[in-house]
């Protein structure tokens, strides 16, 4: 990549990092603003990677998500960051470990261009994989997800009463 692409990457990576920190650490309106910044930064990075359609969809989807969060959090105080239990703290610490592992993999990994050994990897191949060869596994996962979603909705309704 040339200097122009490098400049674009560093500028929008800074926007994305700032938005990510805001979305992860803040509450209320700043959290929605952080998500909007992530949407803008990510869309610009996708466009820089020649992925224009993905950039457009990401901008719209994450922008709408920020709007939904803004509307859902309206009327709440911006200082409503809840510290959580010991399990929450442990999970947050593990997130830091996950970042270290991912950073190590990114720096130490060896990447090369090549074809997938299983042949062409496109929409038709994916469809054959999901509804033909691994249909039973896909059905099992879909049933588990549907059961979980229904249980979550029922749980929320019971708690709301």
């Amino acid at each position: 990549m040339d200097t122009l692409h490098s400049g674009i990457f560093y500028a929008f990576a800074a926007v994305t990092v700032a938005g990510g920190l805001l979305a992860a650490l803040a509450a209320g309106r700043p959290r929605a603003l952080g998500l909007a910044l992530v949407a803008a930064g990510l869309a610009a990075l996708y466009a820089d990677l020649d992925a224009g359609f993905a950039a457009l969809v990401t901008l719209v989807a994450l922008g709408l998500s920020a709007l939904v969060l803004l509307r859902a959090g309206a009327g709440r105080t911006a200082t409503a960051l809840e510290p959580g239990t010991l399990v929450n703290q442990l999970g947050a610490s593990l997130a830091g470990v996950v970042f270290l592992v991912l950073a190590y993999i990114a720096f130490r990994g060896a990447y090369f261009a090549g074809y997938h050994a299983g042949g062409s990897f496109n929409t038709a191949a994916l469809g054959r994989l999901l509804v033909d060869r691994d249909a039973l596994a896909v059905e099992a996962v879909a049933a588990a997800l549907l059961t979980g979603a229904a249980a979550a909705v029922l749980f929320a309704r019971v708690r709301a009463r």
Partner: protein
Amino acid sequence: MSVGIVHFLFLGGFLFAAGAFAVARQRSYLGAVAGLPLLLAGAGLDLVAVSRFATARSDQLAGQGFAVLLALMVFAFVAVGAALNRLETPR
């Protein structure tokens, strides 16, 4: 300094970890839901970057297609989470 796949993977890893941190750290629905877009955005950025740098030219659309799917999933997750938060909040 030239930008390569490592830079994008590092940024994607940061977004993923920030999302995991937000999901694990906060107990409220909205706090956790705000972390999900970061999680999936990190994964999507990695997919697009790998398909751009580390695959053959003809296979680049696969990673971009998955990134589009992830972006749509983000909006669905946030919408469902906001609805659950509304149900959970006492009137």
